[in-house]
C-alpha cells in the first residue's frame, strides 16, 4: 500500500507543479487562457523639435518606464544623423541625442509601445524630495503663512493638507484676497509646491501624458506628487484637486528630473501623438515574455523555426492522451497502439479530408499489392521492405497524377510517414488472411476513428494555444495518463459485451 501512496504523491505532484507552472505563466506573463483575446497597446510618439545654432547639439529627453497600469514593450527612435544613447540610471531613464554640428530645424522622434496592463506595478520607487523652505517677499510671505496655517487647521496629514490647499487655491466661487494675491505672484503649479514644501510636505511637479486615441501634438500635463512618507506617495490633479493617479494617464517623468535638456539649440519643444491599438494578446505580451529571465522556462526563447517544431511536438501528448482515453475507457481496438497518433500528425499537415482520402488510397492500393507479394513466399523483412518501396511508389504516382490534373492538394500525400504506412499495410494484410475482412474493417476503422479524434483534439485552436503557451499542461496530462493507468473499472464497450451476463436471471 505504501507504493500506492507514493504513486498518488507523484501524480498529485505532477498535477500541482503543472497547475502552478500554468497559473504562474498566466499571472506573471499574462499569457491569456484563450487564444484571440485582445489586449490594448498605446503607441506613443514623442517628437523633439529645436532650432540648432551651428554648435554641437546635445538633447536629453526623459523617458517613461513600466509603471502602475502600463508595461513598456518596445521602443524605437529616429533622428537625422544623430548619435543616440540611452542612459538608464535608477529613476532617471533618458535618451540622449548628440551631434557635432547642426544648424536649422532639427527633429528627433522617440516611439514607445505601452501595454495596458492592470497588473503592472512601478518598477522604480521615486525618492522623496527635500523640503526646501522658499522665502517669499512681503506681502506674499504673510499671505502664504496665513494660508498654510489655515489649511493645517483643516487637515490631518500630508494628503488631506494637499487636498485642502488645492481646494482653497482652485476655489473660484468664494474669492479670497490672500489667494488672489499669491496666484498673481506665482503660477499655480509652482505656488502649490512651494506652499507644500514650506509646510514640510515633500512634493514636486511631475508630468503625465493624457492618453486619448488618435491625438496629435499633445503636451504633458503637470501633476503634484505628494509624499506621505518615504515610500508612499500620491498624485494630485492641480486643476481639480483630485487625489490618485488620473485614469488613462501615463506618468512620463515622476522623479523630479527635467523633461528636456537641450544644448546648442533654441526654441526647443516636445510634443506627443498617440494611437490605441488592439492586438492579439499573444503578440502583445510576446516582447514582455522574451525579455524575461532564464527562470521563465519557455519555448519563446527558441528561434522561430524551432518554436514551430515544438508546436507540433507539444501536441503529441494530446494525441497520446486521446489514445489512452479511447483504449482504457472506451476499449476501441486499433491496429498498432500509437499508429493513430502518427496518422493524426500527418493529418495535421495534409488537412483532414485530403489526409483521409490519401490514407485510404495508399493503404488500399498497398493491400492489393501486398496480397500479391504474399504469394511470392518472401521473408518478412524483405516483404516489408518491398511494401515500403511500393508505398513510396504509390505516393509518387498519386502526387504526379493529382498534380497533372490540377489537384495540388494531392501533393500533401507525401506528408504520410511511409514506414508506418508500410507496417499498417503488412498488419492489415496478415489480419485479413487470418481473421477476415471484418476484423480489418474493425481495427482499421478503429485506428482511423482514433486518428480523426486525435486530429480534432490536436487541431483545436484552444488546445494548440494552451499546449504551446503553457508547458505546465504537459505535466497535467502526464498526471492524467498516470491516473488512467490505474483505472480498474469497466470499459465502455465492455458494458455492452457483458450485458447478456448482467441481465441473466433478472
Amino acid at each position: 500500500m505504501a507504493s500506492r501512496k507514493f504513486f498518488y504523491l507523484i501524480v498529485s505532484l505532477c498535477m500541482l507543479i503543472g497547475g502552478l507552472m500554468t497559473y504562474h505563466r498566466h499571472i506573471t506573463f499574462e499569457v491569456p487562457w484563450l487564444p484571440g483575446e485582445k489586449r490594448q497597446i498605446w503607441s506613443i510618439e514623442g517628437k523633439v523639435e529645436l532650432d540648432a545654432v551651428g554648435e554641437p547639439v546635445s538633447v536629453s529627453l526623459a523617458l517613461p518606464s513600466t509603471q502602475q497600469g502600463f508595461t513598456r514593450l518596445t521602443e524605437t527612435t529616429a533622428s537625422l544623423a544623430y548619435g543616440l544613447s540611452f542612459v538608464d540610471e535608477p529613476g532617471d531613464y533618458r535618451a540622449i541625442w548628440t551631434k557635432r554640428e547642426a544648424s536649422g530645424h532639427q527633429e528627433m522622434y522617440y516611439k514607445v509601445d505601452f501595454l495596458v496592463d492592470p497588473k503592472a506595478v512601478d518598477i522604480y520607487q521615486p525618492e522623496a524630495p527635500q523640503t526646501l523652505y522658499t522665502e517669499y517677499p512681503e506681502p506674499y510671505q504673510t499671505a502664504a503663512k496665513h494660508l498654510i496655517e489655515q489649511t493645517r487647521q483643516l487637515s490631518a496629514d500630508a494628503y488631506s493638507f494637499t487636498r485642502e490647499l488645492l481646494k482653497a487655491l482652485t476655489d473660484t466661487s468664494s474669492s479670497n484676497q490672500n489667494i488672489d494675491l499669491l496666484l498673481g505672484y506665482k503660477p499655480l503649479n509652482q505656488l502649490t509646491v512651494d506652499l507644500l514644501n514650506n509646510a514640510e510636505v515633500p512634493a514636486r511637479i511631475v508630468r503625465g501624458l493624457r492618453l486619448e486615441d488618435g491625438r496629435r501634438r499633445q503636451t504633458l500635463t503637470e501633476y503634484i506628487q505628494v509624499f506621505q512618507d518615504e515610500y508612499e506617495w500620491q498624485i494630485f490633479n492641480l486643476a481639480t484637486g483630485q487625489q490618485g493617479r488620473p485614469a488613462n494617464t501615463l506618468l512620463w517623468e515622476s522623479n523630479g528630473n527635467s523633461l528636456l535638456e537641450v544644448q546648442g539649440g533654441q526654441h526647443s519643444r516636445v510634443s506627443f501623438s498617440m494611437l490605441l491599438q488592439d492586438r492579439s494578446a499573444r503578440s502583445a505580451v510576446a516582447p514582455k515574455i522574451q525579455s524575461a529571465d532564464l527562470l521563465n522556462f519557455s519555448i519563446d526563447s527558441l528561434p522561430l523555426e524551432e518554436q514551430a517544431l515544438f508546436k507540433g511536438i507539444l501536441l503529441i501528448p494530446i494525441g497520446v492522451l486521446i489514445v489512452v482515453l479511447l483504449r482504457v475507457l472506451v476499449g476501441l481496438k486499433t491496429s498498432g497502439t500509437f499508429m493513430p497518433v502518427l496518422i493524426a500528425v500527418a493529418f495535421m499537415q495534409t488537412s483532414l479530408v485530403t489526409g483521409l482520402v490519401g490514407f485510404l488510397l495508399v493503404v488500399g492500393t498497398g493491400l492489393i499489392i501486398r496480397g500479391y507479394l504474399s504469394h511470392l513466399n518472401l521473408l518478412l523483412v524483405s516483404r516489408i521492405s518491398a511494401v515500403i518501396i511500393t508505398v513510396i511508389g504509390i505516393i509518387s504516382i498519386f502526387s504526379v497524377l493529382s498534380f497533372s490534373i490540377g489537384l495540388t492538394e494531392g501533393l500533401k500525400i507525401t506528408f504520410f510517414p511511409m514506414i508506418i504506412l508500410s507496417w499498417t499495410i503488412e498488419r492489415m494484410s496478415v489480419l485479413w488472411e487470418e481473421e477476415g475482412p471484418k476484423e480489418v474493417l474493425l481495427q482499421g476503422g478503429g485506428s482511423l476513428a482514433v486518428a480523426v479524434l486525435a486530429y480534432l483534439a490536436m487541431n483545436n485552436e484552444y488546445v494548440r494555444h494552451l499546449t504551446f503557451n503553457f508547458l505546465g499542461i504537459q505535466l497535467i496530462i502526464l498526471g492524467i495518463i498516470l491516473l488512467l493507468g490505474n483505472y480498474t473499472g469497466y470499459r465502455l464497450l465492455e458494458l455492452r459485451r457483458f450485458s447478456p451476463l448482467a441481465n441473466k436471471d433478472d
Partner: protein
Amino acid sequence: MFSSFSSPFKLARKGIMGMNQRNIGYIARYNPRKLFPLVDNKLKTKIIAERDQVTVPQLIGTVRTQHDVNSVVDILREHPGFVIKPAKGSGGKGILVISKQEDGNFFKPSGSVASEEDVKRHCSNILAGLFSLGGSADVAVIEALIEFDPCFEGFSFEGVPDVRVIVFQGYPVMAMMRLSTAASDGKANLHQGAVGVGIDIGTGKALHAVQFDRPVSEHPDTGRVLSELAVPHWERLLELSASCYEMSGLGYLGTDMVLDQSNGPMLLELNARPGLAIQIANGEGILPRLRMVEKLKRDGIEHSPQERVEFSKQQFSRL
C-alpha cells in the same frame, strides 16, 4: 442502442471482471514479468511440462533456421497428421493443422489441400516472426496431431475442442470448453466465432454456452444440444491444470487442455493473459471466486494440488 449497454454498477455487483481490472489487479499483481517467456514460448512450456511430468502432445520436431525448412517435409512424411505452430504465437495465430496426407499433398481438417510449398512457406513465415508478438524471429514447433476423444463427436466442427481452465494461485476457478465452428474456420478462438461452453468445475458438465458473446443452446453447424456436453476424466484434467501453477509460477493462469483418445487430458499451452470471455460462457462473473481464493491466501492456508482441486470442486460447483 443504449439498451444494449448495461450499468457498470450492475456488472460490478455480479462480480464481472473487466479488462482493466484483469490487467492491473491480477496479471500485473500475480504474474511476474520474468516468467512470461515460459508461457509465451510454447517450446519452453513443453520443456518445463516434461520436467514436471505434465502430459503434453508429442513433439515431432522444431524448425529453427531457414535452412531447416527444406528438410522439414522429409520429417513430416513420417507422420500422417501433425500441427505446425509458432513457438511465440498468440491468439491461435499461425497454427497449421494437417489431418492426413495423400499423394504427396497435405490435407487440412476442412478438406482443403496444402501443397508442400504452402507448408514450407508457413514455416518461413513463422521463422520470420510473422505470427509472434512484436514480429521477433521465431521457431516453428511441430507436434503430433491430437486424436480427440470421440465423446466430443458432433460438438466441434473440424477443429479440436479444448478446455480452458483459469487457475488462480493454483486453484482451478473457472472452466470452459471451446468448440470450433464453421464461422471460426476450425479455430477455437471465441472472438473468431467459436462456441464457448461454460463447464461446471464440480462435475465437468456443460452449464451455459455462447457464440459471439451471445447465448446459444445448440452447436450452430452440427446442431448438437450443448447442454449434453460432459468432459470425461474431469478430475484428472483439473489436477493437471492445478499443477501448472507450481510448474509455471504464474498466479493468474489460463491453461488450455485437450483430451486425447489414448492419453487422456493433455496440456496444450499456457496463457499468462487469459481472456474474459470465460465469464460470458459461464454466465457468471469470476471476481467472487478470485476473491475467495485471495481470502484463503490471506488467511495463510496452503493446499496441495489435490486439496486445491477438492476445494474448487466444492466451492465452485454450480450443478
